[in-house]
């Protein structure tokens, strides 16, 4: 299967354009159920044609945030605007947004085509027009032969596509997707991710997706909002979230990371020096820390940015940005191997190495004394 590649994607970043008007705007939105604060003071702007993911563990308030946009919950305080118009008091059936439910919520007593036509019938659309639109939707999700089937006569992947077609049929301004791929197996999920992205591009829709799967969010989104305990912790592009997490929470939630706590001090040149004597670690970066004051912080570095060698690396500054340890465990994942290296204080640091040649014997093996090192700009000092 070869796919002709289209023109290179133009950089899409309306959030950097101060003149751009957001399609959806949450203004200091709070939702509490009794004493429990599900969403606490969230402000967020999502732009037209954006693919935005709300990412967080279960119970972090991401679904509540989405349900408030759909109209199933009213904010306790704050306001939500769609195209600049406040949504307060507008019932769900009058909002120009459609939602794809986690359980798909297909009407079991209706055939696939009736399910897709449901929303169109509510609008009083003409019969011929409905028929044409349903056909178009079935073609879009490649389910034409299944039009007469009932939902319980379909497989999980087919049901997911019916749910998608039904929520797209009314051509909503914004499509909300609640864990859209949660019920699919891994392979199908990866395929569907790209289908969803293509669809969003082709139709030029704004997608707001709720997920707890970071890989899914990274693959598909223009921007990601990471949530924790009802608060938006960071809003940024996938690359920024991965490379520039603003807190230990985000760094730890997205991907794999080594976090080592130590004391920091500002360097005269504008950089930062972090020391963790127990682990035998001295780090220097060019990054300036917030406030520039000394205190406790964490050094965060992704395992793939850590080099592993048997010999002591010849660094520019001896003893800085390197650490000695002993190989404690090796995880072979096929494409990469993860080395877990025990440091002087017993803490473990991970380093991934791409398996660039077929592995016959490892140059570095269990119990070897090794050196881990990294460049000045590979890691981050996180104070939050």
């Amino acid at each position: 299967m070869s796919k002709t590649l289209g023109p290179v994607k133009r950089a899409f970043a309306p959030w950097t354009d101060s003149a751009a008007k957001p399609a959806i705007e949450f203004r200091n939105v709070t939702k509490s159920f009794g004493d429990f604060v599900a969403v606490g003071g969230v402000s967020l702007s999502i732009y037209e044609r954006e693919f935005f993911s709300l990412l967080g563990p279960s119970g972090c308030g991401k679904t509540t945030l989405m349900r408030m946009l759909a109209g199933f919950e009213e904010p306790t305080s704050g306001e939500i605007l769609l195209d600049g118009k406040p949504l307060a008091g507008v019932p769900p059936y009058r909002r120009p947004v459609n939602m794809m439910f986690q359980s798909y919520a297909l009407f079991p007593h209706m055939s696939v085509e009736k399910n897709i036509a449901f929303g169109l019938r509510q609008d009083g659309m003409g019969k011929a027009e409905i028929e044409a639109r349903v056909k178009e939707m079935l073609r879009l999700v490649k389910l034409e032969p299944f039009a007469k089937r009932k939902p319980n006569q379909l497989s999980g992947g087919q049901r997911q596509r019916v749910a998608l077609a039904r929520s797209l049929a009314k051509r909503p301004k914004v499509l909300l997707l609640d864990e859209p791929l949660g019920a699919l197996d891994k392979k199908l999920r990866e395929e569907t991710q790209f289908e969803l992205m293509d669809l969003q591009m082709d139709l030029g829709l704004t997608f707001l997706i709720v997920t707890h799967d970071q890989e899914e969010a990274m693959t598909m989104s223009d921007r990601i909002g990471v949530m924790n305990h009802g608060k938006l912790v960071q809003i940024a592009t996938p690359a920024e979230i991965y490379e520039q997490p603003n807190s230990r929470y985000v760094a730890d939630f997205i991907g794999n990371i080594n976090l080592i706590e130590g004391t920091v001090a500002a360097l005269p040149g504008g950089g930062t020096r972090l020391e963790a004597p127990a682990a035998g670690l001295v780090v220097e970066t060019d990054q300036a820390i917030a406030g520039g004051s000394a205190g406790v912080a964490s050094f965060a570095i992704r395992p793939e940015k850590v080099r592993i060698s048997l010999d002591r690396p010849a660094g520019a500054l001896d003893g800085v940005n390197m650490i000695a340890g002993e190989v404690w465990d090796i995880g072979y994942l096929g494409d990469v191997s993860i080395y877990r290296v025990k440091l002087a204080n017993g803490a473990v640091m991970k380093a991934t190495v791409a398996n660039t040649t077929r592995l016959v014997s490892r140059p570095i093996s269990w119990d070897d004394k090794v050196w881990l090192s990294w460049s000045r700009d590979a890691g981050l000092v996180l104070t939050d």
Partner: protein
Amino acid sequence: MRKGLSWFNVTSLTFGFVFLYLPILILVVFSFNRSRLVTVWAGFSTQWYGSLLNNQQMLDAAWVTLRVGVLSATIATVLGTLAAVTLVRYVRFPGRTLFSGMVFAPLVMPDVITGLSLLLLFVAMDVARGFWTITIAHTTFTMCYVAVVVQSRLITLDRSLEEAAMDLGATPLKTFFQVTLPLIMPAVVAGWMLAFTLSLDDLVLANFTTGVGATTLPIKIYSQVRLGVTPEINAVCTILIAIVSVGVIIASIGVKRREAQRIRDERLAATGG
């Protein structure tokens, strides 16, 4: 483990079935008795069924019972379904606990008390007792059974189905008629049948609330039996048993069919074909 039944199983099964069905069997057998005496067998005959057709009083009573049953079951189903929807879907409204308690109170209330209180009400309001008072009484006490049956179905119904309908632009009323009602229909029908059956065999409430010209079948049978059991009564009862049995058989065939359909559907979905 042995596959067959032990002598203990056989005996207990036999005793159980005899206990349940022997009285009914005797009733059915003696409805075909030639003799006028209920306890003496004098050969096979269907004469009592014939004479039943000419018994205008009995036929009138059956007609009244049928009309009361259909009417009260229908009203009770509408009211009971509405009560169930309110109780399940609107979790927070003032007086909810009181309301739910009050809906289900007639379930545990002795019939005699319900009957007496209704009688007092009708007398106080100076309502002429007859067909309509029985219908109202039956609606009152069968409504809560419908509410219980429909409520249990509603609780298991995925709330997001209704949300999806509203999300797609259906008003709450349209959502109810196009999504909720079709999905709880089996429970609504079951509730109607339960209400109808309860109305058919009610004697106590009917006795309290009946008036001139509104004698139901149970009242008729009961008053006749006090004058002595006739084979005609046996014949009426046999017909009732036959109707009920046919209903039960049809219902269970329906359930089996649907189950088979479900298994076929699942196979279709699994093969993806």
